[in-house]
């Protein structure tokens, strides 16, 4: 057969071009496959891999691959055993720290679990050119540590730091200001600071926020938890906001979130939707604050205490902050009246692409209509806890914005139930990519059924009892992420779960469903401590997980139900057994603890590659007391996991 001269092969492409092509590939598995083709591709792939997450047991650190020298973004926080002090178990930790540096010389962005300061003392000097660091700690900060010692260890060695993320790092609010003030040059060059504390329920006090922002005048991004309740010391007042704006005029991203908002509890509002206390923020000051931040692009003000009649300030947003694209407001009222379908208040911010409204007591269907007319570029819309809106308003909104909306979240709105909500999604059914709804069935007509196909990820949050999931939908061709909140009921009462189940098996209708986050941590009950005759959490586990083997899941993140009395989130026998039946699972992450012999059940899954217990909730159990999953158990389990797998690791 004649070979034409125009027959060019992929390998004929010049290296420079190939390098660029390779550097655009982000998916890890694809990259791993590419690196197996031939030696040249292997070298090219390694030289273009910029981001790496190390998994594996820390005692195998000497096996660290040294071919990833181009990596600039390194994540060390997921090394096994999860949450243990990183190098403490070695007789010569400095040597290993230096080995890490040798293997990854180009790192400028680091994520690391800092159980105690020794980790930073060892690692910070290895990468003095570090630009971005994310610290993680779900365990409690040792009370004997001097204030700020961990930040000082970091700042002393990494003088080029421009971005610091401690949102998942448990420390005291008093730790940061003195350290920031001790390194003024570093503070002045800091451009991103994330102190939105998910890892505890404290908020920064007003004077701490001002001390920090005064030292960091060049901040472009600031995310912080604070206290808006005027009954507490250090609450955020008008003066605080003004001073903040004047300290950091270059802010393009600002999140100020009340500490109570992150506690993951559904809002407890009075019948009208107002909190008992108002925030001490006046709308005229808000106007001045917005005027002082002209570069603002993303703004989150999750106040958790009433800010009334906010519309004048919001109307001003449009002119004072012309770049504003994303806005989230919590407990703001009077944001848009929508009278005569004329856009007013927030609906005048026509540049908005993402809008999230939380607990706005007087938001009505008219408001929604005005917003949809006034913000034609809206692609992401969220509404939580707004009692006055109805399906009609949502439907109007989705209709008007049918060409732009791709991400919708609707939660805790009294007048909405699942069936009517799904009908409101009709205009955007074939565009929508991410959807969250609460599965509330009251007033729903159960006879409505449709058929479905969708792909991607499902996040299920379980709270109260529901009947079988018998809904599906007509083709949602672009839907990638579906998130459902399902109410279950008081699991600490005498009621046992009925013989049915949550209905996970119905999700089998979605064959491309490959990743799931199953969050049962909202379920509170008894672990070992159940009084006689009361069911314990293991019975509920069976109820939640029954049917999971019917799904083609590749990856599952599971948050077990919790026994709050003893701070236990643990896997019991039914969960271990049911999870072990998911034959296609490759990755399983359990956000809790588990006994070794329960983990051994999971070895029955032939495709299982990556399992980890991550107690990433506050406070993470101190390993001494919680004997499940000790370091030796972890090592035995991971050895067993590696030995049964005969595929080439990817």
């Amino acid at each position, binding site marked *: 057969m004649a070979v034409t001269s125009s027959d060019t092969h992929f390998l004929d492409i010049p290296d420079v071009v190939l390098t660029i092509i390779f550097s655009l590939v982000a998916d890890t598995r694809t990259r791993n496959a590419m690196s197996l083709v031939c030696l040249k591709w292997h070298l090219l792939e390694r030289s273009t891999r910029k981001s790496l997450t190390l998994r594996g047991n820390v005692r195998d650190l000497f096996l660290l691959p040294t071919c990833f020298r181009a990596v600039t973004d390194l994540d060390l926080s997921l090394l096994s055993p999860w949450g243990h002090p990183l190098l403490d178990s070695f007789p010569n930790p400095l040597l290993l720290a230096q080995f890490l540096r040798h293997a990854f010389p180009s790192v400028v962005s680091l994520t690391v679990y800092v159980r105690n300061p020794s980790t930073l003392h060892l690692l910070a000097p290895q990468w003095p050119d570090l630009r971005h660091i994310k610290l993680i700690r779900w365990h409690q900060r040792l009370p004997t540590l001097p204030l700020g010692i961990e930040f000082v260890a970091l700042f002393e060695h990494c003088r080029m730091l421009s971005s610091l993320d401690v949102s998942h790092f448990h420390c005291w609010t008093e730790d940061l200001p003195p350290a920031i003030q001790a390194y003024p040059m570093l503070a002045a060059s800091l451009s991103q600071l994330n102190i939105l504390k998910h890892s505890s329920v404290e908020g920064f006090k007003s004077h701490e926020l001002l001390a920090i922002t005064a030292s960091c005048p060049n901040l472009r991004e600031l995310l912080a938890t604070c206290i808006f309740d005027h009954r507490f010391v250090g609450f955020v007042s008008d003066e605080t906001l003004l001073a903040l704006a004047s300290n950091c005029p270059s802010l393009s991203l600002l999140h100020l979130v009340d500490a109570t908002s992150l506690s993951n509890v559904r809002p407890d509002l009075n019948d009208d939707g107002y909190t008992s206390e108002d925030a001490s923020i006046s709308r005229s000051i808000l106007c001045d604050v917005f005027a002082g931040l002209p570069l603002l692009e993303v703004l989150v003000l999750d106040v958790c205490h009433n800010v009334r009649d906010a519309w004048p300030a919001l109307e001003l947003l449009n002119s004072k902050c012309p770049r504003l694209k994303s806005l989230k407001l919590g407990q703001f009222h009077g944001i848009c009246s929508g009278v005569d379908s004329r856009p007013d208040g927030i609906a005048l911010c026509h540049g908005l692409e993402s809008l999230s409204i939380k607990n706005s007591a007087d938001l009505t269907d008219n408001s929604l209509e005005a917003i949809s007319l006034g913000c034609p570029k809206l692609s992401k819309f969220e509404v939580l806890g707004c009692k006055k809106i109805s399906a009609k308003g949502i439907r109007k909104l989705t209709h008007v914005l049918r060409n732009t909306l791709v991400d919708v979240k609707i939660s805790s709105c009294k007048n909405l139930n699942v069936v009517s909500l799904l009908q409101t999604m009709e205009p955007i059914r074939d565009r929508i990519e991410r959807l969250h709804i609460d599965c509330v069935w009251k007033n729903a007509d159960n006879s409505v059924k449709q058929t479905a196909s969708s792909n991607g990820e499902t996040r299920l949050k379980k709270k109260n009892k529901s009947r079988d999931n018998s809904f599906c939908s007509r083709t949602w061709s672009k839907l990638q992420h579906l998130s459902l909140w399902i109410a279950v009921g008081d699991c600490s009462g005498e009621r046992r779960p009925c013989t049915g189940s949550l209905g996970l098996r119905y999700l089998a209708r979605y064959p491309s469903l490959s990743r799931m986050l199953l969050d049962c941590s909202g379920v509170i009950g008894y672990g070992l*401590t159940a009084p*006689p005759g009361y069911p314990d959490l293991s019975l509920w586990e069976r109820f939640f997980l029954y049917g999971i083997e019917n799904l083609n899941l590749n990856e599952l993140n599971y948050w077990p139900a919790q026994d709050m009395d003893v701070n236990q989130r643990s896997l019991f*026998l039914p969960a271990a057994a049911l999870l072990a039946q998911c034959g296609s699972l490759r990755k399983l992450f359990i956000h809790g603890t588990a006994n070794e*012999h329960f983990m051994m059940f999971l070895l029955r899954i032939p495709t299982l590659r990556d399992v980890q217990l991550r107690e990433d909730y506050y406070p993470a159990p101190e390993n001494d007391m919680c004997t*499940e999953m000790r370091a030796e158990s972890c090592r035995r389990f991971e050895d067993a996991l590696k030995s049964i797998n005969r595929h080439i690791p990817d």
Partner: protein
Amino acid sequence: MGYNLLEALNVRVVGSGDRYLVLAHGSGTDQSVWQRILPLFTPSFRIILYDLVCAGSVNPDYFDFSRYTTLDPYVDDLLNILKALGVDRCAYVGHSVSAMIGILASIRRPQLFSKLILIGASPRFLNDKDYHGGFEQGEIEKVFSAMETNYEAWVNGFAPLAVGADVPTAVREFSRTLFNMRPDISLFVSRTVFNSDLRGVLGLVSVPCCVIQTARDVSVPASVAEYLRTHLGGRTTVEILRTEGHLPHLTAPALLAPVLRRALAR
């Protein structure tokens, strides 16, 4: 045994004080069950915690089925631990099966124990003529045979439902903790516990004892505490806690702690 006992059974010594105190957990739990009691005693005692070889937190490979056929090897483990730690005198708090182990240990080495505190203890679980242990032979056999016939299912995690509705509450409660251990170990240890009968040796105990019982424990009838008081050889007191349940150290530590303190003082 070819392994380091102190490591294998997760032995820990915490606290500061001049007296040793051993906290021994019962079946279906491990030493973390003492977590709420521990901080109340660490200032005044050197506390020794360990896991029974059958606990879920111990490497199951250490469970030698040919060795642990009665309670005596468990007693060996306890005494070996104390010897390895160089302890020649201590107070002992044992829950459930560890109470039985403590009784046997004190008979073998009476000088070692200054006081025995027995929580949820029973010398024999099965009923006998004139003795009410709480469980009928027939009931227990039903549970064991259900486990054995459905062993495959049980090993795969579905036995809790197989222990059916016709089985009395006591047995169901007991079986709740069964599944915290590896199934084969669990079945084996349950048989060992139910086959044990310490009534004959109670009189040989010379160490002073304190029997702590909750007002309602489905695993231990109220009469058992009185039986222990009249039959234990040493000076014995009985304390009834005004709470229910089999795990007062977990569910009611605030009630248990003062009682423990009083018992340890004398």
